[in-house]
Structures are given as C-alpha cells and as structure tokens.
C-alpha cells in the first residue's frame, strides 16, 4: 500500500494519535516503571515507559527502530540499504482499579505490515488469578513477550525466536496469569487458549517447515482455522539475586482435518517447547538465552524437506564496560555484547541414505552499543552467518555490519 493511500485511509486513526500525542506533550508526565526485581519477562508488556496527560485515563508510549546495513553473501553484496523495521505505538488505560487495558500497534517496514500485536483487557481478581482476554502474545519463550527493540543490543531479532517461534506471535483468546513471591523467589504462570496455527506452516514459499507462515492467515483474528484452540502454558521462577528461568509449551492441531462435516485428514499436531533464562552477574554482565524445540506430525508421504522436528536458540552476553555521565547524559552506558545463534530447521535423516538432513544455520554477532539512557540505544553489530542447505552442501556465508538506533518514546 502506498504511504499516501495508507494515510488517507487511516486519517482518523492518525488524527487520534496526533491528538493524543499533542495532548501528551503539553501535559504529559512520564509514568515511572516498576523497576523492582519482581519484574519478569511476562511483565514486559506493561513494563514500558508511558506518558500520561494529567488525569487523562489513557497513557501513550511506543518505540521505533531504524538501521542501515551492508551485507555480503559469498562475495555478492546488495549494497547499503536503510530500513525502519518497525514503529510501535502503545496505548494503555487503567479502566478501573485492577482492570486495565493495553494495546500495541506495530507498523512494520514503513506501512508494509500493520499489526495489532497486543490488545487485551486484564482483570485482577487476585495476584495469582488474573483474567486476560483479547489479542494476546502467546507466552512461548521469553523473546515473544519481551521483544521491544530498545531492550536489546542487537539490530536483528534472534533467528530462532522469529523463525521457530514466530515472534511476535499473538492471537485472539483468553486465559489466566498470576504471580506470587516469597522472600527472594518469585513464581509466575500463564495459561491461554487462543486461535492458532494453520497448514501453511508446511506449505509455504520457504519450502521448509516455517511456523511464521501461520501469520499470513489474515483471518486468524477472526476465526480459528480448524476449531481446535492453541493452548499455551508458561511457568517461570525468578530469584532476585540470581535470575529467571522459564519453561513454556504451546500445542495445537494445525491442519484442516474436517470441513462441512467431512473428514479430510487425520489431526496433525504441532508442539513447541521452550526454555528461557536471564541472569545478571555482578551488575555488569547480563546473560539472556532461549532454546526452542518444535515437533510436528507431518505425513510420511509428504516431502522430507518439511522437518518434523526443529530446534534452535540464542545466547546474548552483554558486558557493561562504561557506566557514567557521558556527553551530558546521566547514567549513560557503553556495552559490549555478543550473540551466538543456532537454528536447525530439520532435525532428522534422509529415508533414502540415512544421511543427516541439514537445513541449519549458525551465527555470531559481536556488538557495541551506546545507551544515553536505559530506554534508548545506538548500536553497531557485525554478523557472520553460515547457512547449510538441506543436503549439507558447503555453507553459504553471509557477513555484514548493521548500525541502528532504537528508542522508546
């Protein structure tokens, strides 16, 4: 859609945003976040900076990411290009005591894609028992919920968290979440039923099992593809001095096995398990990681290029080398970081040869970032990536530099 057409079609929404924005700029005060160490990944959706205008019951926020990149793949470069992968607007409201609403609207790559990533009402009956309904982010792994660009030292999102877990993955549904703590420990859970996957995950232009293809179904916010809900469960535990570990699962029948009362196929399941963790060592080194496994029931008679098992993950190590006033910014930081990534899209062996099926990649991403404040980052990454095809032929090597900015606003 052309930008001008988009602006015309959405002029009311834009006027509303401008109205709120101007109002906020006149009367706004920043709502401080809860920065206690009770915060967990599941709280990331609310743990964002918002601006609220006086007693106006609505608070606004958002973030933007932009970067330039230069990549070379086996000696061939597409040259330098610039990208605005996303600009996201948050609107939150405390409707009543213990009833709140938050929405997250994302504009990806200009206006190529516009998604409501989160739009849910929360009813707190008890800290351990909150009802949530609307468009929710399925709590699988940690990145899907804690994905805001300014939180990360890396320009690109982790590959496993966007191609096995199709972050940001959100669906319409309902569920419960809760949290409790005792001394140094905090425990939380989430449980939701939502609309879910569809059979495009094994029938897509990638030619591999590709869970993000489920997001191409534009009707998924309107109706469930096959009437079987996607169930997502997560539990996490945090020690205030040590860190957090989370275990999550989501499971669904992804295919259209029945229509108009006619049985078309057997029910074919998809199950995704994830473990995530984060810790801080001596308040200087942050380590964040996530590993995910996906298991699919795919007919034996379909092509083996569509993997029945996938796995992958990442580890980020961020070392804060300088933290002091710099260039007039209090609490500015310079961080060094590195990300290690591995994704195997097809775990298994060929029926014909018993040889290993590959279709995998590895990457290392050293990075340096400058943070004038915790909510704003200027970052430079160098990425080197090895991608091996299904057969295990010599890997395609890609390397490049990305320099970008990201900030809440």
């Amino acid at each position, binding site marked *: 859609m052309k930008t001008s057409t988009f602006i015309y079609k959405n002029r009311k929404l834009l006027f509303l945003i401008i109205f709120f924005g101007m109002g906020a700029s006149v009367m706004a005060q920043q709502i401080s976040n809860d920065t206690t160490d009770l915060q967990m990944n599941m709280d990331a959706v609310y743990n964002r900076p918002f601006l609220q205008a006086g007693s106006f019951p609505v608070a606004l926020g958002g973030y933007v990411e932009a970067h330039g990149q230069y990549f070379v793949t*086996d*000696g061939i470069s597409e040259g330098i290009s610039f990208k605005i992968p996303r600009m996201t607007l948050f609107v939150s409201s405390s409707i009543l005591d213990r009833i709140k609403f938050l929405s997250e609207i994302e504009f990806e790559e200009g206006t190529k894609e516009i998604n409501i990533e989160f739009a849910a009402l929360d009813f707190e009956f008890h800290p351990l028992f909150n009802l949530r309904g609307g468009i929710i982010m399925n709590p699988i792994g940690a990145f899907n919920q804690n994905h805001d660009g300014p939180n990360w030292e890396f320009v690109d999102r982790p590959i496993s968290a966007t191609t096995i877990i199709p972050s940001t993955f959100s669906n319409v549904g309902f569920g419960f979440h809760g949290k409790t703590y005792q001394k140094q420990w905090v425990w939380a859970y989430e449980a939701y039923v939502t609309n879910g996957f569809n059979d495009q995950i094994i029938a897509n232009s990638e030619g591999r099992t590709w869970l993000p293809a489920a997001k191409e179904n534009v009707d998924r916010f309107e109706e469930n593809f096959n009437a079987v809900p996607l169930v997502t469960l997560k539990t996490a535990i945090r020690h205030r001095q040590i860190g957090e570990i989370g275990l999550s699962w989501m499971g669904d029948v992804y295919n259209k096995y029945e229509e108009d009362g006619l049985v078309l196929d057997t029910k074919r399941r998809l199950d995704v398990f994830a473990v995530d963790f984060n810790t801080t060592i001596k308040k200087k080194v942050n380590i964040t990681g996530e590993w995910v496994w996906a298991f699919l029931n795919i*007919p034996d008679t*379909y*092509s083996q290029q569509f993997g029945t098992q996938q796995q992958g993950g990442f580890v980020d190590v961020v070392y804060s080398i300088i933290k002091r006033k710099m260039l007039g910014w209090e609490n500015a930081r310079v961080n*060094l970081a590195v990300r290690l990534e591995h994704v195997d899209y097809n775990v298994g062996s*060929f029926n014909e040869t018993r040889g290993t099926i590959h279709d995998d990649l590895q990457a290392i991403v050293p990075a340096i970032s400058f943070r004038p404040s915790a909510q704003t980052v200027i970052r430079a990454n160098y990425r*080197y990536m090895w991608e091996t095809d299904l057969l295990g*032929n010599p890997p395609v090597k890609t390397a490049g530099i990305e320099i970008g900015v990201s900030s809440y606003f």
Partner: protein
Amino acid sequence: MINVKIKYLALVFLVPLFFYSCDEVFPEAPAENELLDGPMEDLAYSEQNRFLAGDVAFNDEVFTPENGLGPIFVATSCGSCHPGDGKGHPFTTLTRFGQTSPNQSNNIPPGAPQLQNRAIPGFEPERLPSGVPFMKFTPPAVTGLGLLAVLTDAQILENADPNDDDGDGISGVPNYITPPDYFQPQWFHQSFSGKYIGRFGKKAAAIDLLQQTATAYNQDMGVTSTFEPLDVATNLSVDPEVSDQTIRDVVFYLRTLKAPIQRESDASDVIRGQQIFTDIKCGSCHIPSWTTPESDIGALSNKTFYPYTDLLLHNMGPGLDDGATEGSAETYEWRTPPLWGLGLSQDSQGGELFLMHDGRAKTIKEAINMHGGEASISRDSFEQLSETDKQKLLTFLKSL
C-alpha cells in the same frame, strides 16, 4: 579514572583488532571454477534480465498446494532437485517405469512414465505397480545445457555407429523420440519418420529443453502448463498452474547457464590423466569437445566447449540393465552422461557422491568399474593401469 581510560583504550583497540584478526570480514566469492551456477559470458543486458527471471523461477519458486503443487509429486521446486544447478541427491531421485522394450506404446501401466512418490497432506502418493521394471534417475547437473541444445543433429549423427562399422567395439545410436505436440523443430533438427533425436535425460528421452522443462514441471512437481496440461493424479486436463512465460524463462536460464570450468588444467597430473583418458578410449563415448553452430543467442554461437559426451546411447551391459526404457532405447542402453562438472558433484550432493544413472556408485572409481557392455574394454584397461596412473586419471576427472 585510570580504570575508565583502560576501558576506553580497550574499546578503541579491541574493535579494530576484531576486524583485523578475522580472515574473512566479508566472505569472498568462491572462485568461478568452483561454482556451477552463473550465466555465460557475453550475454546482452536483455539476456541477463531474462536469465535472472529464469534463475528466480528455477531456484526460488517453491510450489505449494496453493499454487499448483501435486497433489502427487516428487519435488517442490526445480532447485530442490538440482541444488546450485548441480547433480541431485537420492532424496529427489525419480522413478521411471512403463516401457520395457524400444518404441513400446501398448500395455503401458497406469501412472507411467514416472512415479510421483509424494503427496500433499490428505492425498495418497502413487504406488509402483507390482512387478513392474523401473529405473531410478538421480537428477543431473543442468549447467551448460544450452551448448548441447544448439548442436545440430548432423553433428550428433557424425559419431553414431549403430553397426560398429569401424570395429572399435563402440556403437552409439541416437534415441529417436516422438515429439510432443508443442515441439517446434529448429533448423538443426532432422525428422526421422516424424521422430527426432533426443539429447537430454539419462536415456536421452527429451528432444529439447522446452520438453525437458515442461515435463519436469508436470511429472516432478505435478504442475500443469499449456504445454503439459494433464494433471498427473487424474490424467485429466486442468487449468495451467505455471505460465508459459515462466517456463520459457526457465528454458532461457537453462540455455544460458555457463558451462562448468575445468580446474587445475595445467597441473601435470591432470594433463597425464587426460592422456590416459584418451589412451584407454574413454573419449570414444565421452567425446571431449564440440563446437556450436550459429545460434539465436550470441553467447552460444561458434563456441568450442568440453562436455565429454556424444549424446548417444550405448550398450552398458547387463549390470546396468534395469529392464525399463524410454523411446527407441534398449533397456541396457544409456546416453553417455557429460562428465563436465564431475569434480564439483559432491558440492551439490551433500558432500558425498551418487554417480551413475541411479546414484549407485559412491566414488568415481566405483562408477568406472560399473561400466559394462561397450565400455568393458575401457573399464578393463583402467583396471590394468598402475595405481599411479589410475590416480592421475581420477585427478583429471575430478578437475572437470
């Protein structure tokens, strides 16, 4: 304060050191002779554009049930059978069956000529009829095909010797193929009672690259076109699932893919190996060089190239007789496969080698030893070579 300065210094020095210490800050392109893909030299801008369109259709377009895959099929894209335009893997081996004698047109079992051994979810793949002889075809490399496509039938026939009149033990016959309706003979084609010389495929069953391409879309991916409109599952005509333009772009791509480039051709072992190749008469069938006539594509005109094939069928003996055939070929006859690109095969076959028509040979030496029939003399000569000379011959073959 000193601590902060040290950190600054570390930052200033470590970052450039990282880039300096990394051998490949940006990965370099593999040498041109290490790759099979890429266009021929001297293509015009318009031809480069067309090459690119064909490249995208061949390597990037993946078929799904939504855009025409199946419902029964073998592979989902051209590139999945010919990775990097090279030889394929047993994962996408084709099973051909139906004809058990030359020119057979009756009693062809249903589902022939090719087994579609995969199916989209909810459908059943084809099963091979019980007791039917069949052949397995490992996908070949597709590079340099344009040069073979423009050779004249007269050039091919110059090497044919059906009755072995010269007494060298090598015959060589064309496979005469009944053309499909859409075949348009070019000036270099000759008609033999309505049949034409096949050049492509393990049995030389395809006359030109259009037939090869349209058939592959249909038989390998279950994708119909105006050229091959019958759905492989039902044998009924359905709407085209791939456009004429796409098929013609792919044909253009195949016509203009560069020929494999020999490596280390000046090395003494390679030169000696080439001499041995000639001495033991491998070159009687694997004819080293050809020269193209004038072509509608300038880059294909008057080019001398080195495919190591004669495009003719040869008796390869009972060990390679699968009991099935195509066109006018006997069940024991196989087209001489081009040897160019042989040394790069393992870069497209997942680090292993799957040679001969069905991938049964795991090394070049094994492949040589599987030669029978007309090739027995050369095979026996190879066996009698010293180990050093055998290695030199193999070194030469790997340089191709």
